[in-house]
């Protein structure tokens, strides 16, 4: 109980310091949880999410790593209002201080970054309702049937359109038809006219009509709307999965910034606190572990904090040239990073603020597989920056669009991979197409490139075919 009192005092102090710095977080609910609960939330992404074996698999692996002492999650924070932060039971007070400062900055980011502006802040409850609904479907249609469907649905869950402006399918067949058909004056009997018109149009096939009229990025939504074989409950599940994906999407797109922001502030805030010598040393150790660079991947905490610190420094002390050319006044660092946290996402963050000096200082490089060795192949800073950006395009997922939902006039689904230099994993393509088939009910095709040649993969319900175009 004393521990809780102390923690409470510490949180109050941290809140005050954070406010002094101008951070603007959601109110926080801190929950102290045993490890298996923290790892459950980590694996599911949310405490209230629906059940699926793939989450069990992730949970098992994370928990195993914890049990073996290989990794540890100290906290989890949920983007909601109020925000929830789950603290690992047994954290020391100084660990909790660091975490509290860290999660406060996360929720400040959730609340103020533009890409989060449309996220559902009641997602905890929504996901809970989703879980309940899916569970009911299990009772109604059988666990295996639902699981089977989820397997297929989850295989394309990343293929949504997260753009902020157009949340729905970007076209409306009715609308397109109206444009073609002669306009009728509005009358009280408009509905009847419409009925009549539709009937006529079905009889006379239109040349230009194509579904979708333009390539459609939101594969999930397209299937949900136009698949000829889905039942209501299946469409319902797709809707819910899509909602969840859209909720997670900004987090995928701002990983480097978000972690950088949180790491930046936990460092700043803890420097303001009155720490004992022991605490100072433990804090330094923890912090070092968090921002530890890796030889084979990018540590978002490290890259993110480096960039924010660099931006602040550069805007605090602009060069003569910068002052003259851009009218930058000295001492604007803090203001600048707040602006950056508001308007950027990782792609633009890297594009706009990663400099030659950063790349050199962080000793970044590109590596690649040659034969069976992983070899450093590039140290040119622009190529490195472009690769970092490239890896974040579309959340790091291949960009796939629906070209045609009525391919060969036979209701077949034609997908196209917008190839930009990186090939798809062919084995995975061949294993995923059957899932898409399961959702669409007719032959599905995917066009992509291998060795610079266009190739079409097709699955007809029995076998995957491959054909060079």
């Amino acid at each position, binding site marked *: 109980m004393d521990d809780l009192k102390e923690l409470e005092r510490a949180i109050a102090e941290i809140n005050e310091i954070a406010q002094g710095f101008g951070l603007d977080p959601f109110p926080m609910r801190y929950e102290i949880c045993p490890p298996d609960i923290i790892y459950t939330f980590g694996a599911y992404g949310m405490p209230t999410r629906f059940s699926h074996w793939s989450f069990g698999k992730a949970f098992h692996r994370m928990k195993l790593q914890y049990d073996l002492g290989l990794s540890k999650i100290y906290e989890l924070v949920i983007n909601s209002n109020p925000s929830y932060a789950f603290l690992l039971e047994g954290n020391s007070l100084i660990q909790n201080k660091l975490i509290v400062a860290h999660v406060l900055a996360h929720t400040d980011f959730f609340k103020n970054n533009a890409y989060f502006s449309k996220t559902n802040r009641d997602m905890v409850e929504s996901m809970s309702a989703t879980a309940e609904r899916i569970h009911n479907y299990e009772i109604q249609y059988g666990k295996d049937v639902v699981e089977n469907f989820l397997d297929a649905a989850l295989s394309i869950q990343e293929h949504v359109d997260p753009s902020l402006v157009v949340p729905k399918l970007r076209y409306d067949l009715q609308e397109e038809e109206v444009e073609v058909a002669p306009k009728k004056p509005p009358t009280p009997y408009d509905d009847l006219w419409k009925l009549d018109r539709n009937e006529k149009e079905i009889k006379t096939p239109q040349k230009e009509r194509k579904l979708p009229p333009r390539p459609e990025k939101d594969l999930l939504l397209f299937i949900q709307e136009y698949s000829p074989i889905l039942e209501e409950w299946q469409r319902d599940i797709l809707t819910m999965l899509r909602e969840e994906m859209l909720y997670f999407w900004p987090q995928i797109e701002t990983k480097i910034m978000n972690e950088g922001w949180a790491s930046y502030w936990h460092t700043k805030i803890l420097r303001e606190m009155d720490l004992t010598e022991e605490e100072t040393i433990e804090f330094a150790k923890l912090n070092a572990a968090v921002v530890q660079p890796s030889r084979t991947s990018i540590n978002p905490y490290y890259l993110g904090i480096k960039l924010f610190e660099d931006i602040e420094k550069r805007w605090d002390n602009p060069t003569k040239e910068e002052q003259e050319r851009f009218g930058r006044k000295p001492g604007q660092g803090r203001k600048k990073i707040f602006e950056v946290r508001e308007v950027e996402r990782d792609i633009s963050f890297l594009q706009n603020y990663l400099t030659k000096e950063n790349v050199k200082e962080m000793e970044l*490089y590109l590596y690649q597989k040659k034969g069976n060795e992983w070899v450093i192949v590039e140290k040119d800073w622009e190529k490195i920056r472009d690769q970092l950006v490239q890896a974040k395009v579309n959340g790091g997922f291949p960009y796939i669009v629906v070209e045609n939902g009525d391919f060969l006039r036979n209701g077949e689904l034609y997908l196209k991979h917008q190839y930009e230099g990186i090939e798809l994993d062919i*084995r995975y393509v061949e294993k995923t197409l059957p899932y898409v088939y399961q959702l669409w009910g007719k032959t599905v095709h995917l066009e992509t490139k291998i060795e610079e040649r266009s190739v079409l993969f097709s699955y007809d319900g029995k076998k995957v075919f491959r054909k060079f175009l």
Partner: protein
Amino acid sequence: MNEPLFSISKEDWSLHRKGYEDQMRHKQKVREAIKKNLPDLVSEESIILSNGKEIVKIPIRSLDEYRFRYNYNKQKLVGQGKGKVGDVLGRDDSGQPGPGKGDGAGDQPGVDIYEAEVTVEEIEQMLFADLELPNLKNKPNQKMIVEDIRFNDVRKKGLMGNIDKKRTILENLKRNSLNGKAMIKNISIDDLRFKTWEEIIKPHSQAVVIAMMDTSGSMGMFEKYVARTFFFWMVRFLRTKYEHVEIVFIAHHTEAKEVTEEEFFTRGESGGTICSSAYRKALEIIDSRYPPDRFNIYPVHFSDGDNLTSDNERSLNAVKELLKRSNMFGYGEINSYNRHSTLMSVFKNIKDEKFRSAVIREKSEVYQALRTFFSKNEANQD
């Protein structure tokens, strides 16, 4: 706006079992996948070569969460640290191309790939659950237990006739050297050591399996591998499920020899093929050591079917003789090209339900052969 800035709570989470429940479901699916993959796992080289001692890592493909993703092997990735162009960061040793190795698993950095670890024990559990010695009968005339005596212990007290001279002298030397003089003198009662024996109760086996393998020149790498894979699992199955089954190993080409287990699994031979030699050897061993009124007898023979034509008639007769004495006779033919086989065409005419045969065209059919021979009733097999 009166919402408090924060709250702390600590709830009882003990009923929150979702993670564990879904973990169970995942585990169950892994088992299903193993079961589905049994035909392939049974002929997995790494298991046979590891002699069944090790854990094998097998990518359980159906448990991957498939989605459209990039080919990491063809992508440039970002890392950080000291290093110049050309420095090697790591090696992917599992990546050498070979049978059964796609572009799937590997420990490439930065990529998270799931491989189910399967212990040989797990595979056995599932595999052996389906297998048993067919037509096994109680043999009432057998003497269940033989006693044996083995000298295998040394004690301070015992009969003078069993004195262990070497150890007694060693003890004396030890004692004298403790007193400063390393020599043999004044042997005292304390120095005496006696051999003593133990009575071993050795239950007599009820069944004998006679494993016969063609080691002639026509048995190529593939044929030998398949035959050994079959016998590998057969031996493990018999030893795991039955406490008292004896196994006799016979290798043959134009003539047959009884060999040790190790020789059976490792020896390469060549020459022509006379299968009847093995069958006659088996008959000889049965008649001298395993009277059918006391033993359940199971001869199993693997060959490529390429028998000397003039021997077919003799082989047929020998098999008929064996059938009279056996509970089941199994003939496995490894015939990857679907050749017309001289031996099988002769055996086709055997109308005895104790005779079972299996043709193996590819590795994965070893599993089916095991099920054909070692199941209660062949008719039940799918």
